[in-house]
């Protein structure tokens, strides 16, 4: 079709796309080549100086990145396992099935920031109910101030908050599975456990991959939980990439440097998620 006004009709969509996606990315790249900070707010040009600083002189960024990888992979694995277990549980005909289906979704319906404030109160070392209960056993873990335990506190809160999302996707997946292969498997002599391993799980593979990738993308943006729960502390022991970039950019106003970190982070995420998706597809779908 040759229609000379076609670009005119394409324009509104293109305009939005340019405005909210393409321009910001290009601007971030340009910004990352500048020394914009609070003393010198302007788009000057300093070449690759920011990148050189990032790759040679900033272990804190890389530490926060590996910490993020650890946190997101651990939380997503836990979310997947728990979410699958819960979904599998209410997939079968059990009593109060509808009640449980709704109950398991409740955490997702809450506001994450507010829930994190509540969790912070829960885990407060001297005033929180968790340690109050644990005092019966004579222990009082430093949930928020011990560098190792604090990571697990973040994991607990993240898993609690986002397992319902995984549960929802996986339950929808389970409900959409054909019933027939399960009939066949029972007759073919597969016990319930083997039925799960050889039928349910492989049939769920495509949905699992989708759910895991979506959650990985979401989880690698962990920010509000850390911000409210520990503010990256104690020290930097729960600081994640996005939180560190936030500190550099919006607290210390090293805009140029924060932009170079953001861009580097974006590239790394695209590459690693692509690899993860490929690997998952290969392992789960055997393709």
């Amino acid at each position, binding site marked *: 079709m040759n229609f000379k006004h076609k670009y005119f009709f394409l324009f509104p969509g293109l305009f939005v796309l340019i405005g909210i996606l393409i321009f910001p990315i290009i601007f971030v790249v340009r910004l990352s080549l500048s020394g914009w900070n609070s003393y010198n707010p302007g788009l000057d040009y300093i070449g690759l100086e920011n990148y050189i600083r990032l790759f040679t002189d900033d272990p804190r960024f890389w530490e926060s990145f590996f910490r993020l990888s650890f946190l997101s992979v651990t939380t997503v694995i836990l979310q997947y396992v728990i979410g699958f277990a819960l979904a599998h549980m209410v997939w079968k005909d059990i009593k109060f099935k509808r009640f449980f289906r709704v109950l398991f979704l409740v955490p997702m319906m809450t506001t994450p920031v507010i829930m994190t404030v509540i969790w912070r109160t829960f885990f407060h070392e001297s005033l929180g109910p968790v340690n109050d209960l644990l005092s019966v056993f004579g222990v009082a873990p430093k949930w928020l101030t011990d560098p190792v335990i604090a990571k697990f506190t973040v994991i607990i809160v993240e898993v609690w908050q986002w397992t319902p999302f995984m549960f929802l996707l996986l339950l929808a997946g389970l409900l959409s599975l*054909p019933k*027939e*292969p399960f*009939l*066949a*498997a*029972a*007759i*073919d*002599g*597969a*016990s*319930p456990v*083997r*039925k799960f391993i*050889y*039928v349910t799980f*492989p*049939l769920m*593979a495509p949905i699992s991959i989708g759910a895991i990738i979506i959650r990985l993308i979401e989880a690698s943006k962990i920010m509000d939980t850390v911000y409210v729960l520990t503010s990256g502390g104690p020290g930097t022991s729960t600081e994640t990439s996005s939180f560190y970039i936030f500190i550099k950019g919006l607290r210390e106003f090293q805009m140029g440097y924060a932009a170079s970190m953001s861009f580097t982070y974006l590239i790394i995420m695209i590459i690693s998620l692509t690899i993860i998706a490929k690997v998952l597809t290969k392992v789960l779908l055997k393709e």
Partner: protein
Amino acid sequence: MDLVANNLSYKPDDQYHLNEVSFNFKEGNLYTILGRTLSGKTTLLKTIAGLLTPDSGEIEFDGKNFLKVPVWERNVAMVYQQFINYPHLNVFENIAFPLKQRKIDQSIIKEKVMDALKSVGLLGYENRKIQELSGGQQQRVSLARSLVKNAKILLLDEPLVNLDYKLREQLREEFKNLFSKGLADETILIYSTTDPRETMELNGEVIVLDEGKVLQVGPAKEIFENPNSLKVAEISNDPPMNIIEAKISDNQIRFEGIDVEAPQHLSKLTEDGLKIGLRSSDIELNENGHEFEVELAEISGSETLLHLKRGDTKIIVSIEEVLNFKIHDKVKINFKINRAYAFHANGKLASSPFGGLNG
């Protein structure tokens, strides 16, 4: 090793799916369950397989209570009317699935799967995906899957019903060959179908099921020749047997102003409410016959089915050639009355031309 059932009942809603069903199946035999749709055939097979638990009654296999054995430990195989396979596995893996559930050597699995593939004519398809196969091929795969495990009980639930005409004929032929080649002597083969022709061709022991109740049990020939009731006569004939309300007196069968001389096996039946049964193939067009009006003429294959009417009496005649009739045409027909059955008012067989309950 016999499969014995006593008074199986299953009533999930206000209707019986199984109603006091009892049977005694012996190894090495073929049993055909004949019944219309929703007669309880699938329910019965599922109960034997263990996918359903009956409300009451018992099943014993090899002298043991079969109902206490979980599905996956019962040595049964089943082919469904929908072609059920594993969509995530290829043809080879599908057929190997039942074997992989037991600890069997890989090389033996391969050999057995190849044998099964060969017997259903799918050699060379082992690496195909299930979705790439046609309906008939998919059904062959599930048949192969049921053959490969040498189950003691093989259940076939209307395996041909969802296939097109040609494939059905072809597979039916292959089934007959497979069965006659003697599926291991110790197998109990149970085949359910709605099609009387299939039942006759398979020529096994027939169980006629209707509304969850067993109506008649016997060899195919016996069911065909001496149906014990009107219902059985309807179910075991396609098109269903014509039922004509008639009266017999003075050695004449009288209905709708027609008098036909009664054959010997009917002549003594003079009761009220008698029903005469005559197969659609036992009526023929004849210039000197009785006049009927055409209500509908369907051509099916090389056959013409004429739906005829005279007064309140409606009959179906099947003619072995393709003929064109218009609605309201008048045709003349003759009854092969010595092939007629008679049923009492309560539906029980009164007399059959093959000697059942004469007089």
